[in-house]
C-alpha cells in the first residue's frame, strides 16, 4: 500500500512538472520529508478505516504538504490551480483505468483492488493516461495562452479549483465498495462525462476571461490618454507663464545693452540661464520629448509613469530623438505596452529614492527609444543599490522585493516567447542595470 501511495506521489510530481510548476531537487527532498512525516502521523492516528479511503485521504494530504511548502516559498497563489488539477487528473486516470480493466477484461473491481498483478496493471494504465492527459492539457493551455492568466488571476484559479474539488467530493460520496460492478461502472462513466463537459466549459470561460483582461487593458490605455491630456493642458499653462517671464527678462537685457555694460550683461545672462524659476518650466520640455513618440498608447503609458516622478525630473531622462510612428508588426501594441509597463515599474522600484540627490542632476533612470533598420529598440537604464543575480531574475516567483510575487519578468518572458520577433537583453555593470527590448519587423 505504501508502494502505491509513493507511486501516486511520483505521478503527482510529474504532473506538476508538466504544468510548469518548477520543483528543484532541494524542493522535492523537503516535500518528501514533509510527506513522510504527515503520512506517518495520519496512519498512526487513523487505522481503522477502509484501505481504499485511507489511500485517497493520504494522497489528498500530499496536496496539503506540497501546498504548504509552496506557501513557504511564496509560490502558492500562482500555482494553486495546478495542484488541484493534477490531483483530479490522477483520480480520473485511476478510475478510468479500473473501468477499462472491467469493461475489456471483465475483471471485477473488488478483484482489481486485491490482487497484486491487477493493481500493477492498473498502475501502468493510470500512468499512461495521466501523462497523456497532462501533456494534452499543457498543450491546450499553451496554445490558448492561458498560463499567464492562471498565474495572475486569483479569482479564476479559485473558482475553477473549487468546482473541481466539489466534483471530487461528489464522486467520493457515491463510490462504495459494496456496489455492484455495474453500478460502479455507471457512476464512473457519469463522473468521467461530467469532467469532460466541465473541462470544455472551463477552457471557453478562461478564454473569455482573457478577452476581458484585454479589454481592461484598453480601458487603461484610454485612461492614460485622458491623463496625458490633462498633463498637456497643464504644460500649456506653464508655457504661457514662461513666455510671460521670458519677455520680462529680455526687457531686462535691454538696460545693459543700452549702457553697453558687457560684464553686467554677461552676468545677468548666465544668472538667468541658471535661474531655478525658469528651470521649473522644464515640464514643457519633458513632454516635448514625448512628442516624438507618435504611437499614442505608448505615449500615454510613458506620460502616466513619468508624471509620477515629477519630483525627480532632473534625475531621469527620456530620449526619443526621431519620431516613431509605428510599432513593428511582430507584437500587438497592448502586449508591448504591458512589457514596457513592467520594465519601467521594475526600473523605478529599483531606485532607492533616498539616495538620489535631486540637486546633483545626475541621471538615475533613462529611457531611450530609437529605430534602426525597421527595428524598434528600447533601452531602459537605471542605477541600482542592491546586488542582483542574473540567473535568477526571470524565474516566476523570484523577487528581491519583500511581500512580492515576482511575476513581472516571468510574465515578460512568457509574452516574448509567444512573439518570436522580440528579444530582451539584460546587462548589469557596476553602476547600472540595463534592459534592452528589441522588436523586429516580421517578414
Amino acid at each position: 500500500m505504501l508502494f502505491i501511495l509513493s507511486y501516486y506521489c511520483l505521478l503527482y510530481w510529474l504532473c506538476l512538472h508538466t504544468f510548469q510548476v518548477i520543483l528543484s531537487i532541494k524542493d522535492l527532498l523537503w516535500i518528501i520529508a514533509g510527506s513522510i512525516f504527515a503520512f506517518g502521523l495520519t496512519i498512526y492516528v487513523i487505522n481503522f478505516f477502509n484501505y481504499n479511503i485511507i489511500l485517497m485521504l493520504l494522497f489528498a494530504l500530499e496536496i496539503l504538504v506540497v501546498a504548504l511548502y509552496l506557501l513557504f516559498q511564496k509560490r502558492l497563489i500562482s500555482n494553486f490551480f495546478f495542484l488541484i488539477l493534477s490531483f483530479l487528473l490522477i483520480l480520473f486516470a485511476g478510475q478510468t483505468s479500473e473501468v477499462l480493466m472491467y469493461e475489456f477484461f471483465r475483471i471485477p473491481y473488488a478483484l482489481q483492488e486485491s490482487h497484486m498483478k491487477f493493481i500493477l496493471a492498473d498502475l501502468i494504465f493510470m500512468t499512461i493516461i495521466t501523462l497523456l492527459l497532462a501533456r494534452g492539457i499543457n498543450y491546450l493551455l499553451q496554445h490558448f495562452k492561458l498560463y499567464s492568466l492562471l498565474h495572475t488571476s486569483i479569482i479564476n484559479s479559485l473558482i475553477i479549483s473549487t468546482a473541481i474539488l466539489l466534483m471530487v467530493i461528489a464522486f467520493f460520496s457515491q463510490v462504495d465498495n459494496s456496489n455492484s460492478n455495474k453500478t460502479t461502472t455507471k457512476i464512473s462513466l457519469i463522473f468521467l462525462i461530467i469532467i469532460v463537459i466541465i473541462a470544455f466549459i472551463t477552457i471557453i470561460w478562461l478564454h473569455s476571461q482573457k478577452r476581458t483582461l484585454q479589454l481592461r487593458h484598453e480601458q487603461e490605455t484610454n485612461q492614460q490618454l485622458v491623463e496625458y491630456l490633462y498633463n498637456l493642458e497643464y504644460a500649456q499653462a506653464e508655457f504661457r507663464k514662461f513666455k510671460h517671464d521670458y519677455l520680462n527678462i529680455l526687457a531686462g537685457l535691454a538696460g545693459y545693452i543700452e549702457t553697453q555694460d558687457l560684464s553686467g550683461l554677461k552676468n545677468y545672462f548666465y544668472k538667468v540661464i541658471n535661474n531655478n524659476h525658469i528651470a521649473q518650466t522644464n515640464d514643457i520640455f519633458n513632454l516635448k520629448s514625448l512628442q516624438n513618440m507618435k504611437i499614442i498608447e505608448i505615449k500615454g503609458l510613458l506620460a502616466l509613469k513619468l508624471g509620477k516622478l515629477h519630483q525627480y525630473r532632473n534625475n531621469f531622462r527620456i530620449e526619443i530623438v526621431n519620431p516613431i510612428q509605428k510599432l513593428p508588426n511582430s507584437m500587438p501594441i497592448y502586449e508591448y505596452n504591458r512589457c514596457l509597463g513592467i520594465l519601467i515599474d521594475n526600473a523605478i522600484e529599483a531606485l532607492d529614492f533616498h539616495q538620489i540627490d535631486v540637486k546633483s542632476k545626475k541621471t538615475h533612470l533613462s529611457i531611450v527609444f530609437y529605430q534602426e533598420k525597421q527595428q524598434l529598440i528600447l533601452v531602459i537604464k537605471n542605477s541600482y543599490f542592491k546586488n542582483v543575480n542574473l540567473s535568477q531574475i526571470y524565474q516566476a516567483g523570484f523577487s528581491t522585493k519583500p511581500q512580492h510575487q515576482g511575476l513581472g519578468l516571468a510574465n515578460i518572458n512568457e509574452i516574448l516567447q509567444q512573439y518570436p520577433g522580440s528579444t530582451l537583453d539584460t546587462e548589469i555593470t557596476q553602476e547600472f542595470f540595463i534592459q534592452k527590448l528589441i522588436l523586429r519587423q516580421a517578414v
Partner: protein
Amino acid sequence: MKIYICEDDLSQRQHITKIINNYILIENLDMKIQLSTSDPLQILQAIDQEQSVYFLDIGLHSELNGLELASAIRKTDTHGYIIFITTHDEMAFETFKYQVAALDFILKDQGNLKENIVRVFQTIQQQLMIDADDNDTIAIKLNDRILYINLKTLIYIETLSNHKLVLHAQNKESLITGDLKALEQRLPNNFFRAHKSFLVNLDYVDHVDKKQNLIFFRNGASCLVSRRKIKLLTEHKLKLN
C-alpha cells in the same frame, strides 16, 4: 589623425574650427582638420575607413540630420570618434551612445565652448589609450542580431533555460538570447566547453577542483566542469601555453 567638422551655423563653425586648430598647435597633437563644412554630403564624400574624429552638429538643417550623418559615417569608419555638438534641448546622449556609439558631446549653449572642446580632446586621448590595448571586441552574428563581445574581459558563459545565456565578464554581466553551441564555434581557441552548460575562458582559470568538479576563476567565481572534460581541459591548457 584626421578631424572633420560639420556645423551649419557659419559663425559657430568658424569659432569651433579656430579653437580646435589652436588646441592642436599648442598641444602639438598629431591631428589636422581635414574638412570643415556645413554640408553633410561633402563630409560623406571625403571620409575613408581610417579612424578619424568627427564633430557633428545635431540640428543640421539639411537632407541629413546629425544622427543620420553619424550612422552613415559609422558604416565606413567603424572605429572613429564621433562627437556631437548640441544644445541642451536636443541633448540625447543615451541615444547617441546606443544608436551610433558616439564618444562625447559638446553643449554649445552652456558653459565655455573652449573648455568643452578641451575636455573632449582629453576624452579622445583617454579613449585612444584604451583602444590601443583593447583590440579584442569581436562582432558575432547570432540569429539576426549582431553581438559585440569583448574577449579580454569575458570570463565564462552559462546557459539558462529558454535559450538564454548569461555572459559573465569582469565588470558586468549580460543576459541574452542565444545558443551556446553556436557561440562556441565562433570564439577563439582559448574558450573551452567545460560542461553542457558552461563555456569558459581558459585565460581566467585559476585552478580546478577535481573532487567537487569545479573550475575556479581568478576573480573568485566558479562553475561546474563535467568529469569527462577535466582531462581534456588540462591537455587543452597545456597546448595553449
